[in-house]
């Protein structure tokens, strides 16, 4: 069994599962701790550094951090990481003085950004403070991308979006709104040192089943329909609406239709309810607003009768899974007709690059996606970079932001004539002791056993009457502080020093979670890890999680700490008579560089 390499940040970052799961590696526990201390502005700025849109993401992030939260290993629900981000945004003070200063003297490099979604804006945010000139082309009249055109205002108020876009635009972006780029070849001739393409995945899929052409007046692509609603081209919905698809777009379509006057809204999806792509909380909110979700139904025909559109016919299907978890749908033969006046199709979206000429050296793969280096996001044309939905198909805002950081690093290297891969900077890190006194820590080491708090919202009957009123009210301060205290401070690491350990076993005796083990290793028979793991206090380890393995101690034993369910309560360090354990906070100085 190999000793853990503690000379780089990798082991430690992996222990902070929420941060590790966040595509932008937002220092989650750090900002939650600041919230717990009511230092909202600082909490906001920590977020702003990594994820650029804390107010937006604190409302609508897909929150990959939450399923990763270590709290779920010791109780039912994760920390409400996402909604605590909103707390930082709601309670912060004016942040202008904390924003980076923009050099008057530019570095003479000009960068073009295509599309004003979160990916491009992150690139702008990262490059402007370095002295770059940034020129933005956006075909819509305003910035924001799908955050403005598709995500409904009842989930993300326009004021919140505008505020966070302005922090960036006011840094001195040269904006060309209402200007669509129709030829990359032409843009390549303009004097830009690099071009970033953040045009998203704007092309919604149709569902071409029988009856499609005749019924076309009654069928709309969900994302286009949503855009029309946000740009006020569509202001009402008919009485009966069917939504096809089970993702978050479907959820936004049905909830919006309800608000525009539809009284019978039915979402039908081929998968089972549990397998629907929409986040569980989106499904719950839709149902709370009186929307019917009908799983296990596959659309087979748009039904026209007597020249009139009647509705959609579905076949009931059953999902079954093979041992690899792959799903197959089996038709049951049973069909139903769901009558309606409008069908919203929310079955997926694609990138669209008709404006990129195929003879300019920019390579595409067989799915018509640009060929990219996954880490640098550089295309086969050295000066062209991609990010966000345009790079690898539809994802989410936080992925677009993470891509923006990666691309900004690459563009900066490229403009200095460096290699975007080989010369990539590595993040520096530091482990800082949190010791204040013999048994005092600078973080709240006591464990809260409270359950997750629900975010207050306006009454559901009110909610469905208002198109642009935000449903969620956010945590009040009391709830916020209680929720913040649930965080286990996973970035405050148990760091072990084998040279000062006297093997008194105090740490392994006190640990509430059976993390710590002192193990005899027999040089002859303990060659493989399995035999060693069999000697741990809890032998059934979680293979996804790291073990912290020390070099040999004085008696020849080794210390193995299973990081899996550590509460970071600090009792091991409090009980250690020699300070061989310390609680140290992981500080990474260039988080962007950790995104790989």
């Amino acid at each position, binding site marked *: 069994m190999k000793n853990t390499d503690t000379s780089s940040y990798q082991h430690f970052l992996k222990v902070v599962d929420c941060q590790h799961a966040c595509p932008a590696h937002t220092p989650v526990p750090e900002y939650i701790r600041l919230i717990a201390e009511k230092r909202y502005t600082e909490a906001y700025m920590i977020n702003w550094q990594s994820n650029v849109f804390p107010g937006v993401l604190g409302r609508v992030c897909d929150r990959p951090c939450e399923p990763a939260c270590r709290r779920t290993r*010791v109780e039912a629900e994760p920390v409400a990481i996402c909604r605590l981000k909103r707390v930082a945004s709601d309670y912060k003070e004016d942040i202008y003085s904390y924003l980076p200063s923009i050099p008057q003297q530019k570095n003479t490099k000009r960068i073009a950004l295509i599309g004003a979604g979160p990916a491009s804006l992150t690139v702008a945010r990262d490059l402007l403070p370095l002295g770059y000139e940034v020129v933005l082309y956006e075909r819509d009249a305003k910035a924001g991308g799908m955050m403005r055109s598709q995500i409904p205002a009842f989930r993300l108020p326009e004021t919140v979006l505008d505020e966070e876009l302005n922090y960036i635009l006011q840094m001195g972006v040269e904006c060309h709104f209402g200007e669509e780029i129709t030829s990359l070849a032409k843009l390549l001739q303009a004097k830009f040192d690099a071009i970033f393409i953040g045009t998203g995945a704007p092309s919604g899929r149709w569902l071409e089943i029988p009856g499609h052409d005749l019924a076309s007046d009654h069928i709309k692509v969900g994302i286009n329909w949503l855009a029309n609603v946000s740009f006020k081209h569509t202001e009402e919905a008919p009485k009966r609406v069917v939504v096809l698809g089970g993702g978050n777009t479907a959820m936004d379509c049905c909830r919006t239709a309800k608000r525009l006057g539809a009284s019978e809204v039915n979402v039908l999806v081929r998968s089972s309810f549990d397998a629907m792509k929409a986040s569980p909380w989106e499904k719950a909110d839709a149902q709370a607003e009186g929307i019917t979700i009908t799983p296990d139904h596959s659309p087979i025909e748009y039904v026209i009768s007597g020249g009139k559109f009647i509705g959609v016919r579905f076949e009931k299907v059953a999902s079954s899974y093979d041992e690899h978890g792959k799903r197959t749908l089996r038709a049951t033969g049973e069909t139903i007709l769901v009558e309606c006046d409008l069908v919203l199709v929310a079955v997926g979206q694609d990138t669209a690059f008709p404006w990129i000429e195929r003879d300019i050296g920019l390579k595409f793969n067989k799915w018509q996606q640009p060929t990219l280096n996954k880490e640098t996001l550089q295309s086969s044309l050295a000066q062209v970079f991609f990010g966000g939905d345009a790079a690898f198909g539809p994802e989410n805002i936080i992925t677009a932001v993470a891509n923006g950081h990666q691309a900004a690093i690459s563009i900066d290297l490229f403009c200095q004539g460096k290699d975007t891969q080989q010369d990539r900077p590595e993040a520096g890190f530091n482990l800082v002791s949190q010791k204040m006194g013999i048994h005092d820590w600078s973080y709240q080491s006591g464990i809260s056993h409270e359950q997750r708090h629900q975010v207050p919202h306006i009454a559901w009957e009110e909610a469905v009457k208002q198109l642009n009123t935000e449903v969620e009210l956010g945590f009040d301060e009391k709830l916020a502080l209680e929720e913040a205290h649930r965080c286990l401070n996973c970035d405050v690491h148990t760091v072990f020093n084998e040279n000062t350990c006297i093997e008194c*076993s105090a740490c392994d005796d006190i640990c509430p979670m059976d993390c710590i083990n002192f193990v005899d290793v027999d040089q002859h028979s303990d060659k493989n890890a399995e035999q060693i793991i069999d000697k741990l206090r809890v032998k059934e380890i979680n293979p996804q999680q790291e073990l912290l393995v020390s070099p040999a101690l004085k008696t020849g034993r080794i210390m193995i700490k299973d990081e899996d369910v550590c509460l970071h309560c600090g009792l091991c360090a409090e009980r*250690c008579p020699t300070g061989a354990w310390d609680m140290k906070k992981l500080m990474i100085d260039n988080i962007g560089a950790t995104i790989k």
Partner: protein
Amino acid sequence: MSYQKSSFYHPRLPVNDLGLTYRDYEGALSTLCAGCGHDAITSAIVQACFELSLPPHQVAKMSGIGCSSKAPNYFLNKSHGFNSVHGRMPSVTTGANLANRDLTYLAMSGDGDSASIGLGQFAHVVRRQLNMLYVVANNGVYGLTKGQLAATADKGVTNKGGELSLFSDIDLCVMALQLGATFVARSFSGDKKQLVPLIKAAMSHQGFAFIDIVSPCVTFNNHASSTRSYDYVHEHITTAAVTDFIPVKTEITSDCQAGVCEDICLHDGSLMRIHKLQADYDTKNAMKAINDIESHKQKGEILTGLFYLDPNGESFHDVNNSSDTPLNQLKQEVLCPGNRVLSSINDSFR
């Protein structure tokens, strides 16, 4: 400072026959010094009771005064307990055992509590063969009163304050062997692999069981010139045999080779399996055990392990032929049968 240990526990923690995890056998959060050997003993007791599936309410924790005697507060918080006067735990335990012979008596004392002020009490409770486990946490000092030398300290050592040990040490294992204890062992707080099976066997044993556990006082007796420091003990500890405890219900799969292995059947049907490291190792010979202890001591070694075991020895209630029903369960009329019975007893003496 954390005054609380989280009630969260490892989701894959094993449960015993009673459906309890080892966490159900814990007590209050220890207030002993960080790194005190006594906390490791606590944790070995918790583990042993958990593995034995002892119903906590059928255990009585007995102690005197000292850091070691505080330790029962830190384990088995669902059990009975009595924290007696300094050195008087044996008398109180005798009384309790007389009243209720059905409880499992687990006594924890210190070398000060047992080898100084309580030496007389110690000697008599061994001699009395009370059915109990008597544990001494041996750290060579009076920890609670800031590190004065205990009577167990080796002659010639100095304590942290520089005080010289002028007299030869009292070895409580040797005394227990001389006075007729039927289970005698020595162990080290830092060696749970040895300690936990010994505690389990001692608690299953019928009769007086004694375990002297070397338990470093990290605050007052862990300096370079100490013979009870972690480093000294790690370097000088040795054993003649490795003991396993095999509970009644466990099917025995590996065989026990004569000469190197020996199975001893305890009163309740459980087994102590002994893997000999020294060919002449013998659990039936108290004289030899005393010899071995002393000769290792002369070599500067601390001999640990099971020294002596007589699984069929008599205990106090056998000797006295006392009632099988615990006295506390007998009705008033039976306990105090009145004048008629008294006069018939008196008549028998005439």
